[in-house]
Every structure is written in C-alpha cells, then in structure tokens.
C-alpha cells in the first residue's frame, strides 16, 4: 500500500482492459470498414447480364436454348472470320465490350473452355473456321481458341460468370470475366 490507494489488483485489471482493447482494435476495426471499401460490386451484376447476353442473345441462333449457333460463335470469337451476311445479331467489326453493351471503364473477357473428365484443368475450345472442338492439350494447334475481349491482367480481382452450352456437338463452358 502506498499513498495513491492503488492496489496490485487494480493495476492488473487496468492493464488487462488496456490489452483487450488493443487486441480488439487490431482484430476488428479493419473488418468494420471493409464492406464500405471499393469492391467489384457493379461487376457482380453485370457479369450475369453479359453471360446471359452472350449465350441467349448473341449466339443462340434465335431459339433461346443453350445450344449455340456454330457460325455465329466462330464469327464472334475468331477475328479473321467475319460475318459475311450479317445474319448474326451483333456487328462483327465492333469490339466485344460494344457487342455486349458495356460502358467505358469496365473490362470483359469471354473464354470458352471444355471439360476434363479426369478432373484436370479445363482445356481450351478451338476452331479452325469450320468446326468447334475441345483441344486435347493446353493450347490450340492449327486453330484459334474461342477467346474474346481484353486479355486478362496478371493481378487484381475479377468476377466470374459461367454458362454451360452446347456448340457443334461439343459441351463447353462459357466463362465471362469482368474487372
């Protein structure tokens, strides 16, 4: 006991309250502000719309199924093949972001991949200008991969939307990425 009237217990309680407060601030305060930070909120909605636009409007051949029109699919993804008759419901000379009605400042990439029944990573889907096939390897030999839009950035967050489609006898997955 000294003249200040502070016991050892008082000191212990004071110190533990202080430590608990510090731990609480370090652990929880970043989380409190995280929901209000900038995030891919807009893309979350857009990616669904774009996936549906590509599968059900641009490429379905007018019958509203998940079976894609083979020719329109090739025209959309292959830059060297252009739509000769204008029968497809998009302007082949426009970039993809315009074909899906995307405003500036948003980035989109649409890739078609096949499946791998053994559970490995998905193989690309390729076209030789006539047919659409799933590649057996990781790249397309003697053809181009069905890939449109801007190249993916090497870092940063993106939002993914997926649709399973049937094109030219092949089951494939359309992967839409936005950032």
């Amino acid at each position, binding site marked *: 006991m000294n003249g200040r009237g502070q*016991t050892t217990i008082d000191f212990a309680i004071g110190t533990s309250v202080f430590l608990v407060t510090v731990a609480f601030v370090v652990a929880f305060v970043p989380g409190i502000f995280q929901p209000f*930070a900038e995030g891919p*909120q807009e893309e979350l909605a857009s990616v669904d719309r774009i*996936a549906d636009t590509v599968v059900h409007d641009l490429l379905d051949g007018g019958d509203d199924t998940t079976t894609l029109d083979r020719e329109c699919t090739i025209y959309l993804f292959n830059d060297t093949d252009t739509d000769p008759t204008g029968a497809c419901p998009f302007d082949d000379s426009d970039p993809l972001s315009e074909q899906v009605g995307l405003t500036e400042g948003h980035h989109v990439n649409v890739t078609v991949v096949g499946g791998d029944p053994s559970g490995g990573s998905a193989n690309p889907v390729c076209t030789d200008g006539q047919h659409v096939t799933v590649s057996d390897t990781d790249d397309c030999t003697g053809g181009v991969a069905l890939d449109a839009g801007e190249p993916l950035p090497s870092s940063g967050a993106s939002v993914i939307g*997926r649709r*399973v489609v*049937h094109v030219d006898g092949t*089951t494939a997955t359309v992967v839409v990425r936005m950032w």
Partner: protein
Amino acid sequence: MRAQAHTLEAVTAGMILLASVVFALQVTAVTPLSASTSSQHIENQQQSSAAGVLDTARETGALEAAVVHWDDTNGSLHGVSAGAYTTDAEVNRTRLGRMLLETFQSRGVAFNVYVTYTGDTGTVVRERFIYRGEPSDNAATATTSLALYDDDPLYDANGTATNTTVAGAGTYDNFVPPGSNSGLYNVVRVEVVVWRM
C-alpha cells in the same frame, strides 16, 4: 475503496461499450461484399451451369437416355446391383453423367441427380439417379421435365435402344411407375443439385 469502485465502474463501462459495438455490427446492412451475398453469386453461377447442362442434355438426347438407362433383367440401373450411381466409373456410364463430370468435376463441384415423379396419391416421389453425397446448405438446383411415352425403349448398358419398351418392361415400374394408361407413360422431373465440395 473508492479507487476499486472506480475500476469496477470502468470495467462495466467497457463492457457496455463492447456490447454496443457488437450490436452495431450485427445490425449493419448486408452489403454486396458480405459473405452471404458473395456465395449467392456463386450459387447463381452454379444454378445457371446446371441448367445449361440439363438443356444441353435434352438437346442431345442424353437426358432421355439417362432416364431409361435401366437393366430390366436385374431390376436396377445398368452396372449397379441396387440404388444410384455413386463412383466416377458408374457416373461415366451415362452421357448425362459424363457431361456433369466434365463440367463440374474439375471445378470441385459435386452433383446429385434425382428423377422425381408424381405418384398415384399426388405425392411426389424422388428417386436417386446419381448420388454423390448429402448436398450442403448452399446447394443450387436446376430442373427440367421430360415426358415418357409407353413405346419409348429402354436402353442397354452401351446406351443403345432395346426392343423392350418402358410400358412392356417387367421391372421399370420400380424406378418410374406408369402414371396413366393413355399412351403417355409418365412425366418425370430430372433434378440436378450442385454444391461446392
């Protein structure tokens, strides 16, 4: 004792403050980055994928081939003694199973396939076709309906039509019983449930 009283007062005040902060966190509105809505997005994508597989299977005839993939002699699905397909090899027996494996396996997504029909008393009966486990709480479902006619053939283990029809088969009514006697055998609903493993 006054100092001790002050200390206790401080502790009480601190606890009230913490309780208010916890309460404030709990009542905060759900934002697009909250965990629940992020997984909502994933569920939407899985649901769309499953619906796409079903649509594709219907388009290619794989859907109907799966529903009539029945071994009439043994009274079971081809290749299993009883029950549903569970292993990869068994799932690979039907084209529908193969499509689902190709689409979902590499993404770490599990799937079940059920065939449901409405029984005589109006109750909905759910038969397992592919059963890979109990779905999680965040599973997504896609369904499509399929009409079976009396003269639709059963398929053999290789996926080709046999001479046995669904109405003439001896044991097919263990899987899907006839729903009417007017030429339409029954209407089944094929249900795909997908979830992240």
